[in-house]
C-alpha cells in the first residue's frame, strides 16, 4: 500500500468512526458531542495561538456571543425578544418545527458571521498588543462581555435565556446535536488543513516567527491577523450556537462567557497536543477530554487539583506538547531534514 493510500484509509476510518461512534457508544452521545466541541475550540484557538503566535485568552467571547446571537435570532424571528425574556417562561411561546429549524440554520449562520465581524473590529484594536498584553486584552474583552450581557435585561440578564426544545424525542435530540458538532469539526479540520498549505498559512507562520521581519518584507500583517482571527471566530461562533441549542437554557457568566472553564480548557488542549501543528489540537482535545471526564467522575473534589497538575506538568516538561515532542524526536516523520551533525549535537546536549 502506498503512502497516499494509507493516508486515505486513515481518513476514511476516522470518518467512519465519526459517523458510527454515537451508535457504538450510545451511552456517551453527549460526551462525544462535547469532545467535538473541544476539538473545534482547540483547533480554532491554534489558528491564532499556535500558527500565528497570538495567544488569545478571549476566544470564549465568540463562544458566548455565538450562543446569544443564535438565541436572539431564533426567538426574534417569531416573537419579540424583550417580551419573551421578560416572561421568563411564564407566557405561552410555542415554536413549530419549521420555526425551530429555520431559527437553527439562520441563527447558527448569523452567530458565525457576527463573531467573524466582531473579531475584525476587536482585532483592529487588540492586534496593536503583543505577547502577554494581547492575551490579557482579549481576556478582558471576554470578562467584560459576560458582565455586560448579565446586566442586559433584553436578553434575559443574569437569568439567561431559553431556546425552544428540539421537536423530537430526547435521544434523537442528542444524536442531532452530535452530528452538528461533528460536521462542523470535520469541515473546520478540512478547512485548516487546506489553509495551512496555502501562502496564507505560510504568511501567518512568518508572523509568528518574526513579525517585524514579515512587515519589513511587505506582508499585509494586520490583514492576515484580522482574517485569521475572523475565520477562527466564525467557527467558535458556530460551535457556540450549536451549544445553545444543545443546552436549551443558558446563562451568561457560567455557561456562555465561561472564561475559566472552556476559555482555559481550549488553551490547555492545544498545549497538551502541540501548538502550531495540524493534529496537535485534535489529539490534545481528545486527551484532555478523557482526562477531564475521568477526574471529574472518579476524583471528584480533586478534579481541579488534577487539572492544575496536568497544566504544570505540560508547561514545565512538554512545552511543545505531544506533537511537538514527536517532531523534535522524529523530524523525518514530518518531512523535515536535519543534518547528521546537528542531530548528533542535539542528542549530545540532551
Amino acid at each position, binding site marked *: 500500500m502506498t503512502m497516499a493510500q494509507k493516508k486515505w484509509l486513515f481518513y476514511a476510518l476516522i470518518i467512519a468512526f465519526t459517523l458510527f461512534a454515537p451508535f457504538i457508544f450510545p451511552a456517551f452521545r453527549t460526551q462525544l458531542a462535547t469532545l467535538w466541541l473541544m476539538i473545534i475550540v482547540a483547533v480554532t484557538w491554534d489558528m491564532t495561538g499556535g500558527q500565528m503566535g497570538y495567544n488569545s485568552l478571549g476566544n470564549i467571547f465568540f463562544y458566548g456571543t455565538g450562543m446569544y446571537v443564535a438565541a436572539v435570532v431564533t426567538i426574534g424571528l417569531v416573537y419579540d425578544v424583550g417580551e419573551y425574556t421578560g416572561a421568563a417562561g411564564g407566557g405561552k411561546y410555542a415554536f413549530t418545527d419549521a420555526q425551530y429549524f429555520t431559527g437553527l440554520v439562520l441563527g447558527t449562520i448569523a452567530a458565525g458571521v457576527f463573531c467573524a465581524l466582531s473579531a475584525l473590529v476587536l482585532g483592529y484594536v487588540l492586534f496593536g498588543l503583543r505577547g502577554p498584553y494581547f492575551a490579557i486584552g482579549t481576556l478582558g474583552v471576554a470578562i467584560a462581555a459576560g458582565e455586560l450581557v448579565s446586566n442586559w435585561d433584553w436578553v434575559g440578564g443574569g437569568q439567561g435565556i431559553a431556546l425552544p426544545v428540539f421537536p423530537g424525542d430526547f435521544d434523537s435530540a442528542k444524536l442531532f446535536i452530535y452530528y452538528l458538532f461533528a460536521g462542523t469539526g470535520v469541515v473546520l479540520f478540512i478547512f485548516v488543513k487546506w*489553509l495551512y498549505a496555502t501562502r496564507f498559512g*505560510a504568511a501567518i507562520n512568518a508572523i509568528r516567527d518574526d513579525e*517585524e521581519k514579515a512587515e*519589513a518584507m*511587505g*506582508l499585509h500583517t494586520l490583514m492576515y491577523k484580522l482574517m485569521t482571527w475572523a475565520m477562527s471566530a466564525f467557527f467558535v461562533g458556530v460551535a457556540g450556537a450549536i451549544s445553545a441549542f444543545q443546552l436549551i437554557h443558558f446563562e451568561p457568566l457560567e455557561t456562555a462567557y465561561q472564561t475559566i472553564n472552556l476559555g482555559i480548557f481550549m488553551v490547555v488542549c492545544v498545549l497538551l497536543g502541540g501548538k502550531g501543528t495540524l493534529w496537535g489540537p485534535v489529539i490534545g482535545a481528545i486527551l484532555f477530554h478523557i482526562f477531564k471526564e475521568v477526574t471529574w467522575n472518579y476524583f471528584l473534589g480533586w478534579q481541579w487539583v488534577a487539572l492544575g497538575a496536568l497544566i504544570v506538568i505540560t508547561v514545565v516538561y512538554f512545552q511543545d506538547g505531544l506533537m511537538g515532542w514527536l517532531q523534535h524526536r522524529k523530524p523525518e516523520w514530518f518531512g*523535515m531534514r536535519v543534518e547528521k551533525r546537528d542531530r548528533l549535537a542535539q542528542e549530545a546536549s540532551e
Partner: protein
Amino acid sequence: MSTIIDVSHVSKTFGGVVANKNISLTVEKGAITGLIGPNGSGKTTLFNSIVGYHPIDAGSIKYEGREISAMLVPEIARLGLLRTFQQTRIYGAMNCVENMLISMPHRKMRFLDAFRRNSRQDRERAEHLLEFVGLYEKRLLRSGSLSFGQQKLLEFAMALMNEPTVLLLDEPTAGINPTLINGLIDRLIKANTEFGITLLIIEHNMRVIMNMAETIYCLAHGELLAAGTAEEIQNNQSVIDAYLGAH
C-alpha cells in the same frame, strides 16, 4: 541616471541623543551607494528612518519622487524598497525553501493569490536563488540550524526573491568568513548589474565598500561628514580623523 531616494535635511533624536542631524543624501537609480561611518555615527538610524521604522523629527524622505517619511514599514516595503537587518532576521523554524517562498513579492499579489499554493515556478525560482547565494545544498534544512554567515546569505536571497527595486543592506559582510566575502561581493554586484537592483549599503569593511560603491557617504556623530567617490573619501582628512578618533 535619476535619483530614486532623496533624503533631505533629516534629523532624528532619541531623547537627548542626536542620532541624525540635518542629513541629506541621494541614491541614484541603478547605482551602488555606500554609507560608512564609525560605530554610533547614525547609519542604522538613517536606514530605519528611510524604511519607516520610526518617524523622523525634521526633513523629508522621497522615494521615486513620493514622500514616504510618514508611511509604515510594510507600505514602504510594498513600494519595492526593502532592507536587510544587521542582526540577520530569518524564520528559524522553517527550512530555507520555505523562507524563500514566504518572501514572494506580496505587492505583486492580488488578494486571492494568498489562498493559493506556491506554484512549481515559485519553487524553482526559490531554489535558483538559493543556488545563486550558494545555499542550494542546504535548502531543506531548518534555517535556524545554519551558521550566522549562511543565515546572512539566506536573508540576502530572501530579499532578492522579493524582487525589490532598491535594497538597503545593513553590513552584509559582518560576521561572514573572510574567504566567503569575495563571493558575496560578486553576488552583490551581480544583483546590481544583472537583476538591476539599486543598492544602498552600510559597510564597515572598507575594502568591500571601496570596491563596489560609486558614491560613498560618510557619517560621524550623526552628521554628514563627507560625500564623494571612493577615492575622494579615502583621501578626505576629516573621514580619516573620524575613524582614528580625532575631533
